[in-house]
């Protein structure tokens, strides 16, 4: 049975990608997202935890690509998350992530979310390469974060890293 990896995608595409350094992703917020009807009734605003998720995907793929998607990259720590404005349906968010430090066992990133030049949030994260951590605890050999071939997330990189797509297309 084919496994799907990272099946929940919360960003729409990357617009810039400087391998190992910096990436910018875009997310369009729409009232078609069901949770906005409950958060809150009559006052739909994007939950802040989902802004963190969007940044975690942006920065996580940046960190994953830096190791050629060979490591299992797990969000390990939210170092900072500060929010400056509401995000509403119809907004287009730009998520910019920068790698601050990169080591065999972990990476740290800083990030900014903006909407047409207005600062919405600052989110700094830490990712663990879990195979290199947790004192030898064993995880499945298969890379359940960035699987080969079928990964949907690679389409996010279509505009910025075309070679990634070519590699993953069936021969």
């Amino acid at each position, binding site marked *: 049975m084919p496994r799907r990896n990272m099946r929940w995608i919360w960003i729409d595409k990357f617009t810039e990608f400087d391998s190992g350094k910096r990436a910018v992703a875009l997310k369009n917020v729409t009232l078609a997202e069901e949770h906005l009807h409950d958060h809150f009734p009559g006052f739909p605003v994007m939950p802040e935890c989902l802004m963190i998720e969007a940044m975690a995907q942006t920065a996580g793929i940046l960190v994953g690509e830096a190791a050629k998607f060979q490591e299992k990259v797990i969000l390990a720590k939210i170092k900072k998350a500060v929010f400056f404005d509401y995000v509403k349906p119809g907004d287009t968010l730009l998520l910019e992530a920068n790698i601050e430090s990169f080591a065999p066992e*972990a990476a740290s990133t800083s990030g900014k979310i903006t909407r047409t030049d207005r600062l919405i949030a600052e989110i700094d994260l830490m990712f663990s390469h879990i195979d290199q951590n947790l004192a030898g605890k064993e995880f499945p050999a298969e890379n359940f974060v960035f699987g080969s071939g079928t990964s949907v997330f690679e389409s996010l990189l279509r505009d910025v890293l075309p070679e990634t797509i070519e590699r993953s297309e069936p021969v």
Partner: protein
Amino acid sequence: MAMSRDEILQQVQEVLVDALGVDDDEVTIEATLMGDLGAESIDFLDIVFRLEKRFGIKIPREELFPAESLMTDSELIHNGKLTEKGLAELRKRMPHTDLTEFEKDPDINKMADLFTVNAIVNYVENKLSAA
């Protein structure tokens, strides 16, 4: 220009306040990272990254916080305590830490208490003077 010990301490305190979300008056020189300041394993990597940036030094894996790799070796640990060989290894790996109290009862559960603010300041001081 060489940094004084007080300056190093002040910078280490700032790093720990940011990394662990503690108040600056909690970060005393004798505070333990895990017991007193609530650090978890990923925080140690966060602290290493922040110290590298703050002081412009490179901290090799396991050099500042080497305890984890000792834990899995049965020659070094017996019955929940470090063996003579384990203690010798620990001394070698943590030259920046005062182990005299710990050596009286080298219980691995107390190993976490060895990671103090003071140990970090000693480490950074040695590292900067060697540079």
